[in-house]
């Protein structure tokens, strides 16, 4: 590489990374998602009565929902509402994206979801208390985040993958991850225009790496797709949404919530920092799991790349991105920590689900996988 680094070769034909196609509309998981899909099957200016109905159904369901994070119907509905801001849903008019009445529905769901996340995040933070009343330097913020990451002692999926996971479990693992990894980095990209100066430069530097440094076949999402294909999985965007439970969708919804709402810009930087800080070692273990099953470097490239990349990113994300943002806007410290601890909370809940399913000899997916698997 060396001297060639400054001018990446132009790649005119994308062979490894096909453009992301629109996601097919998933199966509904209850009356809320069912009401949403009914609305989205119409044009915005023709859906008035059904939109009103959707709003009432959501209001009623939210009022009675105990565990929003684990609620299949709510998480799927939120996931699909957010998807309108990414690459859209099959057959759904693009104009739905900014339809005010649909945004109202999203906010009705986001409010209790955020409240549940803050409760879960608070529990994940344990006894940790952010220093009050003093301005923190970027180094101190990075130190706090690294300290939080070190307290992450949930069940270790990565060690299980390294030592014990069967081929079928490796496939399940990829299916869960595919919901995010096929659009890896996108939710954090929303934050770029909401930042300035040092944290903005830091985020762009990280994201450029996530997106392959100018080489589409090296985009992390493309590397992940290659690993999926190597295991005979369908790498088309959203192919396995129907197969994953609410908690897998909630992890992605957390990122979309914090990425799409400018007021949560602190949270999305904290999320990225903790995500990077808890990534290098697990990815080494994931790669070991695939090597144990006889897969070569082409298949483990995604994981190997993350061992090296995330050791760079964790420094930049902790110090320059999250730390730089707190230096510029000290009041955002609490939200930085919220994003970080919410990510930890959902990750350990997903890990607990995977491990309890696998320990009991069950699938961690909602249903048997589609035929392509």
């Amino acid at each position, binding site marked *: 590489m060396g001297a060639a680094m400054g001018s990446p070769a132009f790649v005119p034909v994308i062979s490894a990374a096909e453009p992301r196609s629109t996601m097919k509309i998933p199966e509904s998981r209850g009356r809320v998602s069912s009401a949403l899909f009914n609305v989205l099957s119409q044009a915005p200016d023709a859906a008035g009565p059904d939109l009103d109905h959707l709003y009432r159904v959501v209001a009623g369901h939210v009022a009675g929902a105990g565990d929003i994070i684990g609620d299949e119907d709510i998480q799927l509905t939120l996931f699909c509402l957010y998807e309108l801001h990414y690459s859209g849903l099959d057959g759904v008019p693009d104009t739905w994206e900014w339809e005010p009445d649909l945004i109202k529905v999203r906010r009705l769901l986001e409010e209790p979801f955020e409240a549940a996340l803050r409760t879960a995040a608070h529990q994940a933070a344990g006894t940790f208390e952010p220093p009050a009343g003093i301005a923190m330097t970027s180094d101190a913020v990075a*130190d706090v985040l690294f300290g939080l*990451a070190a307290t992450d002692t949930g069940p270790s999926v990565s060690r299980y993958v390294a030592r014990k996971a069967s081929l079928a479990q490796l496939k399940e693992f990829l299916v869960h991850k595919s919901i995010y990894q096929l659009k890896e980095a996108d939710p954090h990209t929303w934050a770029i225009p909401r930042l300035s100066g040092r944290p903005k430069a830091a985020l762009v530097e990280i994201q450029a790496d996530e997106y392959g*440094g100018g080489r589409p076949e090296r985009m992390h999402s493309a590397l992940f797709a290659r690993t999926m294909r190597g295991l005979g999985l369908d790498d088309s965007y959203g192919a396995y949404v129907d197969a994953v439970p609410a908690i897998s969708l909630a992890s992605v919804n957390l990122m979309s919530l914090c990425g799409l709402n400018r007021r949560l810009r602190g949270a999305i930087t904290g999320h990225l920092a903790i995500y990077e800080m808890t990534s290098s070692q697990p990815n080494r273990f994931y790669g070991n799991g695939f090597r144990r099953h006889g897969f070569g470097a082409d298949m483990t490239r995604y994981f190997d790349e993350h061992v090296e990349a995330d050791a760079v990113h964790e420094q930049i994300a902790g110090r320059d991105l999250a730390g730089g943002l707190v230096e510029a806007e000290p009041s955002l410290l609490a939200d930085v920590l919220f994003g970080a601890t919410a990510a930890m909370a959902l990750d350990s809940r997903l890990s607990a689900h995977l491990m309890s399913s696998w320990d009991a000899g069950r699938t961690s997916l909602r249903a048997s996988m589609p035929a392509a698997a």
Partner: protein
Amino acid sequence: MNPEQKGTGADVDPESAAGSIVVCPDGPLIVRGEFEIVTPSGDAVPRERKTVALCRCGASAIKPYCDGTHKLVKFRTGPPAG
């Protein structure tokens, strides 16, 4: 970098420096800018990204790059260099 620019960060003009090395507390060296990583005989060390983290604790499995192992071995750099 001219001789006057040595010393603390405040003296460094980041625009005229060809590269910079960030000395991360208890962690790697982050190197960005224009540089090459070569073996003692001058061959290029494979490099996948513009900005790299170089191992400083000696425990990385992918040296010369960092893989985060410094956190597991409780590597400490002592008082900040700057």
